[in-house]
């Protein structure tokens, strides 16, 4: 039953190549809604998989599945408006790849088997490469080449890590199936050397895909060259799927009494990511790259939260949700800006507040959210991570994180204000139809609502997803 979630988009994705372009566009939006419906059904009923030797639901997978389906539904409606303006030469390719991409991400969320999960993540790379490539400009070719090569090599390392993990089971003659959840159950008996080696490779491998520094080099190129709806999905949904692999492996190490080792490595990569994005955000000429570096920063924060553990790990899961919502909204708004000004350079834009008030409203809202001002969710998630770090006595991590965050906020503010209010000679035109701004507003609104009203089932799933790293929360 569970497999419906990936079979649906797959079938529609294939059929889109045979149908007229406009029909395909609407079909994609319909599939987005259908997929969200199936995800909600799965969330409530939690059915067993038909191929239950490969697929199984896990709390963290469930969370990312719902988030991914929701984002895709919203983004597919934005596409209806976006594709009216942006004339793509091979739109069927674009729509088809979007759906294949969705299918691959859904597969990653329900695959609890370590190797099937790897296959799903590799498939997301393959399905999303055409989304970056389709412009066929020099820049997009370069970005696509870097993306597919760096991610494939990175993920190959994750495969090695996965194999080392299975060897850790064989080396001590433990018999168990290769599910992440089963690994965690027998973790205490596993061979520690192999397990550690496996973790390092998995962290580097899936960390490449998640955009952790220093393996992040593909990310700004790919996110800036992809079409904006695709950038929104790459940043909002794909990075989470890669994080799933790291989270699940960290849970195993926690169960194997190697938690300290895993945490320190995670914090190291996390701090480096935040530092790298702080240095690059300060001096940036391209607003989509600016947003891409902000994604690296947020992935770093999530890694730090996971590494600190306890209360902060709960914050990291919240951060994951809110980052997806807000960053996708920002990338969609950046799509409007690109349509209006025809350039990705910050210098070429300006006076957005007067010329395009609705896009400005969404973009500014997203900016306020992403740097962590209330009433958006990132304010609370960052606060929780900071409090968690205090609680655990990680003062150095805390100080460094806050310092970098300050620089990042300053850098982002400088450019966003320049884009919104400075004068420009560039004549821009764009009719702001509802489909071009309502999706962003919905995403931002959901982030606000989740701060004040969190459904009980959602908070339960969040706590279950990090049983290892969150531990028992007080109260």
């Amino acid at each position, binding site marked *: 039953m569970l497999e419906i979630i990936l079979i649906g988009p797959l079938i529609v994705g294939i059929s889109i190549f045979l149908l007229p372009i406009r029909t395909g566009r609407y079909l994609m939006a319909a599939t987005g809604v259908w997929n969200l419906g199936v995800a909600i059904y799965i969330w409530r009923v939690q059915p067993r998989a038909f191929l239950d030797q490969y697929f199984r639901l896990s709390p963290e997978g469930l969370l990312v599945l719902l988030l991914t389906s929701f984002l895709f539904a919203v983004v597919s409606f934005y596409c209806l408006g976006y594709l009216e303006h942006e004339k793509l030469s091979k739109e069927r390719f674009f729509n088809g790849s979007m759906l294949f991409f969705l299918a691959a991400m859904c597969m990653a969320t329900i695959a609890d088997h370590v190797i099937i999960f790897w296959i799903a993540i590799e498939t997301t790379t393959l399905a999303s490469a055409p989304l970056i490539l389709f412009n066929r400009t020099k820049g997009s070719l370069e970005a696509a080449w870097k993306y597919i090569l760096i991610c494939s090599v990175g993920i190959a390392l994750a495969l090695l890590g996965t194999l080392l993990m299975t060897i850790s089971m064989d080396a001590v003659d433990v018999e168990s199936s290769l599910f992440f959840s089963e690994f965690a159950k027998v973790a205490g008996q596993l061979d520690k050397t192999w397990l550690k080696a496996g973790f390092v490779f998995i962290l580097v491998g899936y960390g490449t895909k998640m955009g952790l520094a220093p393996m992040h080099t593909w990310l700004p190129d790919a996110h800036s060259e992809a079409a904006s709806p695709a950038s929104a999905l790459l940043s909002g949904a794909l990075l989470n799927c890669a994080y799933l692999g790291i989270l699940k492996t960290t849970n195993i190490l926690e169960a194997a009494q190697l938690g300290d080792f895993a945490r320190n490595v995670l914090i190291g990569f996390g701090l480096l990511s935040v530092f790298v994005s702080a240095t*690059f955000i300060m001096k940036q000429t391209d607003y989509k790259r600016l947003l891409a570096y902000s994604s690296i920063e947020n992935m770093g924060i999530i890694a730090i939260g996971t590494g600190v553990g306890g209360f902060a790990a709960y914050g990291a899961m919240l951060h994951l949700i809110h980052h997806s919502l807000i960053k996708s909204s920002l990338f969609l708004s950046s799509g409007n800006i690109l349509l209006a000004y025809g350039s990705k350079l910050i210098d070429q834009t300006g006076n957005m507040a007067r010329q395009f008030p609705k896009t400005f409203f969404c973009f500014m809202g997203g900016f306020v959210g992403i740097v962590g001002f209330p009433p958006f969710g990132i304010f609370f998630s960052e606060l929780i991570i900071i409090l968690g770090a205090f609680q655990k006595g990680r003062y150095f991590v805390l100080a460094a994180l806050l310092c970098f965050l300050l620089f990042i906020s300053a850098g982002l503010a400088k450019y966003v204000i320049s884009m919104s209010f400075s004068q420009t000679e560039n004549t821009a035109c764009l009719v702001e139809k509802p489909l071009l701004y309502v999706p962003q507003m919905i995403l931002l609104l959901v982030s606000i609502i989740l701060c004040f009203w969190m459904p009980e089932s959602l908070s339960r799933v969040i706590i279950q997803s990090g049983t290892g790293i969150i531990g028992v929360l007080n109260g």
Partner: protein
Amino acid sequence: MISPYDTILMLLFLSVLLAFASSRILTMIKVISFQGVAVSIVPILQNSDLSTSSLVFGSIMLTIRGIVIPGLLVFAVRKISIKREVEPLIGYHFSIFVGLLLIGFSFFISSKFQFPDSQASLLTMPAAITVFVGGLFLLMARHKAITMLIGYMMLENGIYIIGASFSRHKHHVVEFVILLDVLVGIMIMGIVLYNIKRTFDDIDTTLLRKLKD
């Protein structure tokens, strides 16, 4: 007496050195093809109890790794008409030296791990590490995009030896799907490569320097 798979493993070491020393891309593709055949045969030779399914899957692996993928690479080389890697980042002589160091290093690392008691030969792990790191080295040390593809394939071969020889959780369907993923990956990279050649008129990755901060 030297068993046949020890001989194959020794040849794997030499194949890495040959790939390091070669400037001709066709030679490197031949190396990849040989490695593909070797890594598909080694697990079969190591396994004393052969079943029909493992033979069938072994031959599918052999076909894809040894014939289909190298065939695709040869096709790509014809299409983009680039025969040599000129001015590599790290010279050929130094590359061979690195290769020798790498072989020593792989034996050293292998001695640090406690292996599950499998029928694998003592040479298996060093050979796997050499092929794997050798692939990584080619990825870093060469400019042409096609050589990087070859490096990626070599890396993948190295990982396959480790998986097939040491993990007891062999699952032919899963292995097959992994290979399918790799195959599609190679094809997409080939398409990007072709487009790079058409747009830039070369596949030197030093040309891909436009996007940076």
